[in-house]
């Protein structure tokens, strides 16, 4: 376990640092409604790093950073321009174009550089799992400086992020602040993308800020919520990646999204009045039920129409009841089906066993001759062919079973689903007339009493 902890500690500390600065910047970005600006800036800085790489500088060298910074500055200037051009081109479109251009240019430059593919992969996926202590230290210093700058300039920065067309300020002053904002934003994103990758940085930036803004519009409330939620998501994502054996970045992005869904549910069900909560709960239950019934109805129809195709309903039924296709076959067919299943596993096992034997022989005792290897390979090919044959038998029989199942499972399921849908969709009047009659009865009783 100590191994696991030592593995996850650095990535966790790094992601906390990322969340602290990105969630704050995310609040700005959400207010400015330029959600994809981070992708554009990150990609531009990646383009800079790639150009440096193609010119023979390592991405972690000073020259590499200088190139990235130069391209980020250009990006910040272009994004500043976007606000002034907003009358002609929508900011979103402008940001999008910037992003695709930077990505395409990166691909083109990489194409000319030896070992460029590795570079592109790293930008997209990152590798937060392997963050080094030195990287973390320099990140902390960089983020502290930027956080200080933003603290001193918080009033003008928040003001220009908030108002759609800034009033009471000269356009020049707004542009200067815009540029400074995008520049600091770009520097942060450029540094984090090289470690965490584009996908994860986007999650750091946007998801916590969205969670915060679900609950409040006051920055002083939004920020602590965003930070808390972001750190919780990082912890959950890293722990999940470890326990379920998942790729780290993807697991963390999923954890962020799940937390957002949970926050949405909490907002609808917990942070509301009693009456509203009941209404929301009823609505949620009804829509879930309707979805489930619709799915059941559609897939039971599908089962009746085409029993031999992929059948989610039948597979679900078989999986949950433990009644495989064999239960719907005649005794003879069932024997064939079961022996096909057994044989398939056996052939598979033979192939694996031969592979293991060959692998052992690579370094133990007498090496196998090429002829031995060829013989093993041809055995394996035949076992594979035989396994494929058994699988074919299985599929035919499964089709046969499903053809019976469609009346035993499909028809009742369709009828039940249809009845259920009818009950859900019963006229509004109906539903309330009963309650009203009960209520009036109650009042009559009370009068009588």
């Amino acid at each position: 376990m100590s191994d696991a902890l030592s593995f996850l500690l650095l990535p966790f500390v790094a992601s906390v640092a990322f969340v602290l600065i990105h969630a704050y910047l995310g609040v700005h970005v959400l207010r400015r409604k330029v959600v994809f600006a981070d992708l554009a800036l990150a990609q531009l800085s990646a383009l800079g790093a790639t150009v440096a790489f193609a010119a023979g500088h390592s991405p972690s060298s000073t020259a590499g950073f200088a190139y990235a910074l130069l391209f980020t500055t250009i990006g910040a200037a272009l994004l500043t321009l976007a606000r002034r051009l907003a009358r002609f081109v929508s900011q979103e479109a402008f940001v999008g174009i910037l992003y695709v251009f930077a990505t395409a240019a990166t691909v083109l430059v990489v194409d000319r550089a030896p070992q460029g593919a590795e570079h592109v992969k790293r930008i997209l996926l990152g590798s937060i799992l392997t963050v080094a202590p030195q990287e973390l230290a320099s990140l902390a210093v960089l983020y502290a400086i930027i956080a200080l700058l933003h603290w001193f300039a918080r009033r003008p920065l928040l003001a220009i992020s908030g108002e759609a067309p800034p009033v009471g300020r000269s356009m020049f002053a707004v542009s200067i602040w815009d540029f400074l904002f995008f520049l600091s934003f770009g520097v942060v994103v450029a540094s984090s993308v090289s470690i965490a990758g584009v996908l994860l940085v986007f999650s750091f930036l946007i998801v916590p800020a969205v969670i915060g803004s679900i609950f409040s519009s006051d920055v002083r409330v939004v920020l602590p919520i965003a930070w808390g939620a972001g750190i919780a998501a990082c912890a959950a994502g890293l722990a999940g990646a470890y326990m379920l054996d998942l790729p780290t970045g993807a697991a963390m992005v999923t954890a962020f999204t799940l937390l957002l869904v949970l926050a949405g549910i909490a907002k609808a069900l917990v942070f509301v009045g009693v009456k509203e909560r009941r209404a929301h709960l009823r609505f949620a239950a009804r829509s879930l039920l309707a979805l489930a019934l619709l799915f059941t109805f559609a897939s039971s129809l599908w089962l009746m129409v085409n029993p031999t195709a992929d059948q989610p309903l039948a597979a679900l039924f078989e999986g949950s009841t433990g009644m495989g296709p064999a239960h719907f076959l005649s005794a003879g067919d069932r024997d064939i089906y079961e022996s096909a299943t057994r044989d398939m596993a056996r052939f598979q096992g033979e192939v694996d066993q031969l592979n293991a034997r060959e692998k052992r022989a690579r370094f133990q005792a007498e090496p196998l001759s090429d002829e031995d290897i060829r013989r093993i390979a041809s055995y394996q090919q035949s076992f594979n062919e035989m396994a494929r044959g058994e699988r074919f038998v299985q599929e035919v029989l499964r089709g046969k079973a499903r053809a019976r199942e469609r009346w035993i499972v499909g028809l009742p399921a369709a009828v039940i689903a249809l009845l259920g849908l009818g009950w859900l969709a019963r006229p509004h009047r109906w539903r309330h007339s009963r309650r009203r009659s009960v209520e009036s009865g109650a009042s009559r009783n009370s009068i009588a009493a």
Partner: protein
Amino acid sequence: MPARNLGLLITAAALAVASASGAISVAPASGAISVAPASAALRVVATTTDLAALAVAVGGDLVSVESIVPAATDPEAFEPRPGDIDKVRRAVLLVRVGLGYDYWLDTLTKQIGDKRLLRGGDAYLDASAGIPLLEIRGQSVMNEGGHAHGVANPHYWLDPENAIIVTAGIAEALVRLAPEQRQRIAANRERFLAELKKRRQRWSERLAPFAGVKLIAYHNTWPYFARRFRLDVIEFVEPKPGVSPSPAHLSQLILEGRKAHVRAILHEPYEPEEASRLVARRLDVPLVLLAVSVDSVPGTSDYLSLLEHNVAALAQALSPPGRQAP
């Protein structure tokens, strides 16, 4: 196809900007073996630099050889360019790795539609024919066109003995196309095989002290190499190509590596290094960059120097004085 058109437009714009500003200076594309065509030379096109190098060894100055996938890129993630269609169309002999490794070639030749270039055609050579294949997979749902080693492990050229089989195939095809050159082709191949035999002896001696040594590799690239030189690759840093390893897998890897006394981590030059570096650091063993393809590492400009490099790099990393933390 609107997406593709958009891509082209953006590409064109990017090119224009790049050339106009002159800001982007790039190193020349490395790899892509191409031998200057002699007059009336046979035009051989190979999908990888390795097969190209072997074709050069057999064809000598009778052939002009071009390869398609640049060295030092991931051949399984390769995307053909417009120029490649032209290259393939004009090929007198097309040599491929097969086994799903260069599956993209099928769509290319189908698009060209020339019967010569299709499976069974006169100009078509699958170099995997006759190779003793390792690690044949069970259940391959995606047979053709599937990524990730659909049939057997495709990295067979990394075993020097297999070069004998591959060059035999190339020689046979060349003789079929230019029967009058039979003698010269046979002589070229003999010369190459004699040199190969000599060096093969030396390589085996050099690696003999390390027989049975335990290694961890980034991808499953080395079974043929391991079989020939009697190495034991026990695990992989990234078992599923393209899916970055999970923390659980890495810590398991380190645990197993410690238990098995792993002596080095093998790494391909075009893959991200972080994870391999981490494992190497934790196990306190060297990280060895081995070349998968001719020209993917400096000083591996032909087939023999490719193997020479790999043998030397591995032997050096495993010898006690060369043992240092990366």
